[in-house]
């Protein structure tokens, strides 16, 4: 999937270069296909998949987790509101979870836009996750930052009640 994405980026990049003129195409070689997208600081926002690093926004003790698996056996990856299995990569020294532990998490903010039932789309600034246990109850006691109300449909009501702002 990453390879298909890279080729898509290169196709977009080459048409962009064609519009800009031939003088730029000499500067940007084929190996810089992905960096040409940063011309307008645009990124191809994708799913949360294996090896995606997410920020932890509760006070469970972890700081960064790396996704191991997107649950519900999705082919492409997890999106906003899905649960993932993750490995803790970075943690606070005295927290409930330690580095190297395998945990479950609920994606509360995703950079990829998610369609709402009224037809509009929402996107957030970063990828963030709230650690939960196998039953779906959050491990921490506080949640930071905005959360979407897509969580209500997925029955993560406890997270919504802890949130400081519901987008």
């Amino acid at each position: 999937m990453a390879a298909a994405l890279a080729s898509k980026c290169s196709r977009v990049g080459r048409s962009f270069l064609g519009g800009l003129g031939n003088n730029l195409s000499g500067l940007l070689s084929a190996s810089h296909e992905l960096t040409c997208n940063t011309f307008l600081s645009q990124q191809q926002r994708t799913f949360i998949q294996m090896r995606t690093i997410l920020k932890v926004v509760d006070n469970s003790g972890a700081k960064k987790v790396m996704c191991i698996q997107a649950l519900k056996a999705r082919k492409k990856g997890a999106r906003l509101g899905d649960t993932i299995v993750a490995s803790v990569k970075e943690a606070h020294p005295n927290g409930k979870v330690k580095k190297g532990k395998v945990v479950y998490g609920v994606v509360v903010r995703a950079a990829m836009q998610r369609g709402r039932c009224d037809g509009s789309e929402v996107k957030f600034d970063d990828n963030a996750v709230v650690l939960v246990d196998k039953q779906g109850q959050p491990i921490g006691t506080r949640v930071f930052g905005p959360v979407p109300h897509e969580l209500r449909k997925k029955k993560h009501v406890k997270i919504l009640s802890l949130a400081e702002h519901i987008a």
Partner: protein
Amino acid sequence: MRLEKCWFCSSTVYPGHGIQFVRNDAKIFRFCRSKCHKNFKMKRNPRKVKWTKAYRRLRGKDMTQDSTFEFERKRNRPERYDRNLTENTLKAIKKIDKVRVDREAKHHQKRMKKDKRPKINIDAQELKQSLNMVKAPDALRQDLLKKVQVQKQVDQTYAMEE
């Protein structure tokens, strides 16, 4: 259902259109189309982009204050459903729109109209108001203008050289 305003161009975003971006400080930016969204990502300031309402209002090209804008203000209190009220509101919306459009047209006309005063009047007024830019104010005061007799001293050396 709520009609929002695009953060960049201030046009209405109807349901089913546009993208909502939620920043981590919980500020929500709504965009009506990808043009506005892309400009936002480029970090452009809407007050400097000529086709946005923010620019036009700032430069006085469009109306800024009008009583018709009061009707559109956001109210957070939900109203109990009343069929008569709904009917009257719908009629009023149409009328208010017409009034607002007419007033905007008049504002535009006034802006485009040429100044009818003859040019000499305009120039005379400008001279009176802004003469201090050309001459120092003290130079015009009559009591300071004194006539002084200056003795002209003929230099003896020049007369000799000739």
